């Protein structure tokens, strides 16, 4: 903004620091190992529900809307304000702003698994052990339950998970005689064939997405991040990473990827008009397609994630969120009641029925869930494919405890490769260097 008064100049420069006001004093540095004691019992939670009150929920996951409506119906004295504060990084900026400012902090916030460690480390989240959350052990899939832990502390309840699969527009594939690729080699060939048949159509879109890249490396068996407390390693020269760049670099070079940024208007439009013919993405995608790409109704299908070796069975997680309670939330007890309702109780079933991909073992194993036919996907039993993917996730992956920051500078570094300036491998090297530098500045021991 061109601020046109001299006074406004300093005002603007300083508003940054004003917002920073609440942030200075956190001086505890341990990364949260021991579990907090249970101080709020189930009876207390029930009492809070009966007494009523208002809570603010920041989330972008679409099926929560129905959950909020049901929750308010069940507990008429509780008022839930559901706010979409953006997706991914935008939401984290908004949340960080609120936490830093100390005002307007939501009672419940959707936080993806990769972002949880950063908030947990900064003591921005409530340890849910105060509500006895450790008693929920076994309720969620081991992978997601592991993702919300830092030591013994529980910083969120798993809301969904994102084992990857190939979502494709069957109409477009059929029109150009393209078989559903089972391997990445076939996928690359399909990309070429589709774009040759229709120069406007692309196999997928990618303008550089940190979450996608790390998930692809994960599936290929790469482990670029090693985390042990505050000892952190970053290394993008491992064979898994090279497998991915070996596949993706030629697709960029031959301009076979639609460069429209994900989640933008153009992206939704491309998904609707068939110029983005497929997505390799997390299992939470069906609900997003149904709500965001209405024109695709009946055209889309889901297939297993393409494999590095024919006949292989390896997948990875992409995104997936928990819902957590910020440390500065005003009404934590009601917030926990909502958390539990949405992830464990009735809400979990409601969300699964509306197309979300649950993290609860009960929903994942239920015949009702697996047998559900999705009209949007031409009656396909989508959850069978997705649940199979959930069981094939390559173990041993971890994200950095400052992954939100690392992802925010992905465009500065790896993004250049998508513009033809250097290769993906070069970009990943500079991403690595920048991540290492930041980690060191933040006091981590980085290898």
């Amino acid at each position, binding site marked *: *903004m061109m601020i046109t008064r001299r006074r406004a100049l300093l005002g603007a420069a300083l508003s940054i*620091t004003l917002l920073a006001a609440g942030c200075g004093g956190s001086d505890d540095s341990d990364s949260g190992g021991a579990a907090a004691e249970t101080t709020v019992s189930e009876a207390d939670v029930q009492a809070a529900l009966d007494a009523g009150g208002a809570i603010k929920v920041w989330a972008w996951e679409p099926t929560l809307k129905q959950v909020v409506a049901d929750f308010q119906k069940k507990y008429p004295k509780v008022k839930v304000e559901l706010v979409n504060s953006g997706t991914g*990084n935008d939401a984290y900026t908004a949340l960080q702003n609120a936490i830093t400012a100390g005002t307007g902090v939501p009672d419940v916030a959707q936080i993806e698994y990769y972002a949880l460690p950063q908030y947990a480390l900064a003591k921005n989240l409530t340890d849910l052990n105060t509500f006895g959350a450790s008693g929920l052990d076994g309720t969620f899939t081991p992978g997601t339950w592991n993702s919300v832990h830092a030591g013994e502390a529980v910083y969120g309840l798993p809301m969904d998970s994102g084992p990857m699969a190939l979502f494709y527009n069957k109409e477009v594939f059929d029109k150009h005689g393209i078989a559903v690729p089972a391997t990445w080699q076939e996928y690359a060939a399909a990309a070429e064939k589709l774009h040759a048949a229709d120069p406007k159509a692309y196999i997928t879109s990618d303008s550089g997405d940190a979450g996608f890249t790390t998930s692809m490396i994960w599936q290929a068996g790469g482990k670029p991040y090693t985390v042990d407390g505050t000892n952190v390693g970053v290394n993008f020269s491992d064979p898994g990473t090279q497998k991915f760049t070996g596949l993706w670099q030629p697709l960029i070079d031959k301009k076979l990827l639609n460069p429209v940024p994900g989640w933008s208007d153009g992206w939704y439009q491309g998904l609707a008009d068939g110029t983005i013919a497929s997505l390799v993405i997390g299992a939470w995608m069906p609900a997003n397609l149904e709500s965001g790409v209405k024109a695709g109704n009946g055209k889309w299908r889901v297939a297993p994630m393409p494999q590095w070796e024919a006949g292989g069975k390896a997948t990875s997680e992409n995104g997936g969120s928990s819902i957590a309670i910020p440390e500065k939330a005003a009404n934590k007890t009601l917030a926990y009641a909502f958390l539990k309702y949405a992830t464990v109780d009735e809400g979990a079933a409601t969300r699964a029925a509306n197309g979300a991909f649950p993290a609860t073992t009960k929903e994942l194993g239920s015949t009702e869930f697996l047998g559900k036919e999705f009209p949007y996907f031409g009656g396909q039993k989508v959850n069978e494919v997705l649940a199979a993917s959930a069981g094939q996730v390559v173990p041993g992956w971890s994200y950095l405890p400052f992954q939100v920051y690392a992802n925010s500078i992905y465009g500065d570094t790896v993004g250049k490769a998508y513009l033809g300036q250097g290769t993906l491998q070069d970009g990943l090297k500079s991403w690595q260097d920048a991540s290492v530098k930041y980690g060191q500045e933040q006091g981590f021991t980085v290898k």
Partner: protein
Amino acid sequence: MTRRSWIGWGFTGPFLAVFALVFLAPIAYSAYLSVFRTQLVGGTTFVGLENYTKALSDPQFWEALTRVGLFLVIQVPIMLFLALLIALAIDSGRLYGAAFFRISIFLPYAVPAVVATLMWGFMYGSRIGLVGNLNESFGWAIPDPLAPDLILTAIGNIVTWEFVGYNMIILYSGLRVVDTALYEAAAIDGAGQFRIIRAIKLPALRGPLVVATIFSIIGSFQLFNEPQILDTLAPNSITTYFTPNVYAYQLSFAGQQVNYSATIALIMGVVTMLVAYLFQRRGMRGAER
């Protein structure tokens, strides 16, 4: 004597209190923040002037500063020249519908920068925007305005569109206060329009031009909204250190480096005041002669 000075304090007190609260206190607090460092591991430590020495050798900060400097020396002269031409045209009295032009050229200033950027962003779109449509309909090959080598120009265009009317009003009001007797005298002496512009109007505009330029210097160093919003449309073209303000924002909210961010903000405040002050001294020197 004592009594008189107390009355003075009474009058200026309310102003000084507000001034101290909203102006001095934030600066002092920024300065306080800028001598500490807060780490995710290790907490907060006093580091003296370390953040300042770090900023002065930070290539990302320098890149950002160079970029707004470039923006300043190219976009501002173009914008002010356009504003000057329009102000002179409207003031000439020979333009049909001058009032209409005056308001319609000023109107973009009333559009919030966020909305203006979104609007231009859609027009710039080489896939689903106006540029894309033109390329498709006429077989043109307009290069993508949001590509890294053109994006600063694209932002310059948005900013010019937004502020040319505002600057025009400053210059136009400068022209309105010129004594019309001067024009009559010039006409009697046989001066033409261009002579009048050179001998009367331009010298009269020196003050307003200096003011408009200082506003623009400040605005250029403060560039934030336009790149921040275009970032969603062209994430690889706009780095997280595109301008000093974008960098400060990124440091503070993505990097949680509040202390370093405060340092960058303070340095930018000083740089801006310095450049504006030097320009004002230089610009006004001739007027005193």
